[in-house]
């Protein structure tokens, strides 16, 4: 299922014009994004592009100095500026989140069973023996061997891959509608990464939970997600169904990313790097942020920020040099990525 065909049903989460600044420096410039039930959406981009900030902001997990504007609607309820109690029930209960380095994302002085149990008590209304039984079931579900004994272990006693499984078990405890996985395999070895990606895909299939996968790795995104949003300098610059995007990227930045990636098969060719560097958020160029690095830039690119506009029937790109092949669409705003 792609985002566009499912637009008729109302989205689970609708992010509208979400912007974030730190100390007056804008790092997120108005993100529009909708997540539908059961779909797997990838957010891909290089460090500092805002892919993690988007979801930390949506869940109110950014430090206090962050200024957030825009709207994040979950089933018709607004999350931006919501009361702490509302956010607490959403976090883990409706939207769960797991992070990059599982070893540091788990509390080092608390037994794993208790850390998972805490989520079960908060969102499942369980107590006492039921918590332990359910925690063991979750450990079994995510494939932790010898689950009963691992409940009494501490994070440092498990490998990185096992700790990430614990994080996933903890995320599942509240039976969330969306799991946001922020670089969940970046700190793991290749063979363990494959295990965790397979686990995430299996759980999504079994529970119809939506998955938002945040990663810098195009390969990881491609293998796990139905729909992809490519981010650059705090904006979504291209979005499409995964297969279409990787088969034929439209935006010059997406094209650049793919050309910069060494292939694992076929003839070796010289890599085509994207020249220059990602601009600092306090020093963005005028107009299209990618223009100074773009091989197709024209003068107009520096005039104004390009809209994330429809380019073919089911994909959008924020580039004035990418010809539009789509019929004009008679759909009122908002336009979600």
């Amino acid at each position, binding site marked *: 299922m792609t985002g566009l065909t499912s637009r008729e049903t109302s989205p689970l989460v609708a992010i509208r014009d979400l912007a974030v600044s730190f100390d007056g420096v804008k790092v997120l410039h108005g993100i529009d994004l909708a997540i539908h039930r059961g779909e797997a959406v990838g957010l891909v981009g290089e460090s500092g592009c805002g892919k993690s900030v988007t979801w930390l902001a949506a869940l109110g997990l950014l430090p206090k100095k962050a200024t957030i504007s825009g709207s994040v609607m979950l089933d018709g309820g607004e999350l931006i500026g919501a009361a702490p109690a509302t956010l607490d029930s959403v976090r883990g209960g409706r939207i769960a989140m797991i992070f990059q380095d599982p070893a*540091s*994302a*788990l509390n080092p002085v608390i037994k794993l069973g208790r850390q998972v149990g805490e989520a079960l008590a*908060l969102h499942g209304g369980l107590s006492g023996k039921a918590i332990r039984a359910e925690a063991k079931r979750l450990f079994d579900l995510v494939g932790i061997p010898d689950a009963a004994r691992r409940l009494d272990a501490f994070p*440092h006693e498990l490998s990185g891959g096992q700790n990430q499984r614990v994080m996933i078990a903890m*995320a599942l405890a509240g039976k969330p509608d969306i799991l946001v996985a922020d670089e969940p395999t970046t700190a793991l070895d290749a063979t363990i990464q494959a295990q965790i990606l397979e686990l995430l895909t299996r759980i999504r299939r079994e529970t119809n939970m939506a998955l938002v996968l945040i990663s810098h790795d195009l390969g990881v995104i491609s293998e796990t997600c139905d729909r992809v949003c490519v981010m650059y300098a705090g904006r979504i610059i291209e979005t499409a169904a995964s297969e279409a995007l990787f088969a034929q990227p439209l935006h010059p930045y997406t094209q650049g990313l793919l050309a910069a990636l060494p292939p694992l098969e076929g003839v070796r060719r010289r890599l085509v790097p994207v020249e220059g560097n990602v601009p600092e958020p306090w020093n963005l160029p005028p107009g299209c942020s990618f223009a100074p690095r773009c091989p197709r830039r024209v003068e107009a690119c520096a005039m104004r920020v390009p809209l994330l506009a429809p380019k073919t029937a089911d994909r959008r790109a924020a580039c004035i040099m990418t010809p539009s092949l789509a019929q004009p669409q008679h759909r009122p705003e908002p336009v979600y990525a």
Partner: protein
Amino acid sequence: MLRFLLVRLFRAALTVALVVTFAFVVLRMSGDPALIIMSVDAPPEAIAAFRKAWGLDDPIWLQYLRYFSAIGQGELGQSMRDGRPAMQLVLERIPATLALTLPALALKLGIGIPAGIYAALHRDSLMDRIVMVTAVAGFTVPSFVLGLVLVLVFSVQLGWLPSGGQESWRHAILPVLTLGIGGAAVLARFTRSAMLEVLGQSYIRTASAKGVPWPRVVRGHALPNAAVPTVTVVGFMVGSLIAGAVVVESVFSWPGVGRLLVVAVANRDLAVVQCILLLVAMTMVSANLIVDLLYGVLDPRLRSGAKAGAH
């Protein structure tokens, strides 16, 4: 665990032995006890007799060995000044010292830790700045200065409290405050930085992300982790319960162990000084031992101690 304890105990014993040796060397090299105690114009025969009676004529290494073995047997000798057992002299003074240091410790913990936690949770707020400025002032001002200022204000100017002596509980207020404020400041700073460090950790974000309300994140996830570094400072404070009041006791003429030490050092009363140092070293070392064991309780990573090292 047993091996861990044995290693710790051995190190503790070594520390105590070094402290005792150090005191012996310093005191014996800085002056002749016979001359100081008998006064310089005493008849030479009297001084010779004193020397003979206390074994001061023997070679220094023999005196050292004799002293060391005596300590080993729990025999700490007599005060050269009034001939009473040194241990007895010291023990008599301990209650007076604890009467100052225990309430002061309660003050340090009661003010320092909550203030540090509050400052960390409200980082960069007005209260945080006030706490931090107070804390810096609190531990940069030496205790004798603070003591004298308190005396000036509360005794001399306002006349509310006595400036010295040990007649009633009111006499204890100023020395306890002097001791407590400095310690509370140190502890507040330490607790604040430990909390800030912990609050920036990824697992705090994880706890919030699974829907744990913020007060419970602080109590259940941050405090247990911040306790580990804080315990070190508290342990040091517990270890200085006996010896931590030397200056303050002098300023407020409080007849505790600290005053006894000052007098004994001035008189080169070796046995008493040794006895106090031994006591201090032992409290310090036991406090450290307890801290080490507490680490294991507080942090499971240190408990199982699976450490790899290259050789």
